[in-house]
């Protein structure tokens, strides 16, 4: 999947992936795609919930073993 920035939050647990995600998205430009890596099982539900609340678009998800990958298009 095409991406502009990668944010690796492996090893961090709820709510830290979301907190770092929110901070990173603030630094990015509209239309850019962020790749978020996480091994927190909570992120599976948390990231889509964060996207729908904040209006940023979740354009894709992938799983690589225990690593979850989220692709978020900045609004």
């Amino acid at each position, binding site marked *: 999947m095409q991406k502009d920035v990668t944010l690796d939050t492996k*090893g961090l647990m*709820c709510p830290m992936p979301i*907190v770092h*995600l929110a901070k990173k998205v603030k630094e990015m430009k509209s239309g850019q795609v962020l790749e978020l890596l996480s091994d927190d099982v909570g992120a599976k539900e948390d990231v889509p919930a*964060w996207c729908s609340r904040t209006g940023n678009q979740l354009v894709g998800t992938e799983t690589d073993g225990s690593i979850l990958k989220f692709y978020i298009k900045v609004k």
Partner: protein
Amino acid sequence: MADKMCMVVSEGTFDKAMMPLIMGQTAAAMGTEVHVFYTFFGTKLVTKKVNPKLPGMMRLFTGMFRNRMQKVGIPGYQEFVKQCQEMGVNFYACTTTMGLMGVKEADLLPGVKILGAAAFLKLASESQTTLFIG
């Protein structure tokens, strides 16, 4: 207008200290305006000398708990409060409890405001979510 969320914290133990910070920081990250009101034993959580411990015999394991939380990226208590404030979370100490417990305005952590029950209830009535942690 942004969504609002309020929390009331009435206990001062480590578990009750961390929960509103975790919830509050997450809500702030989701674009929600957050207000946390500390009352009764919760009030000491927003004073400068704060070092919350787990309740009862569990207090002996507080350090182990704190280390485990730090390993997964959750900061120590006072640092966590600061990070929440930087993200816009508002902290309030209850006026009446301050009087009862002898807590002075100068004892409060920087940025903590003083609030009465009526003013808090006004905020709560404007909120979509209000949680009681005690």
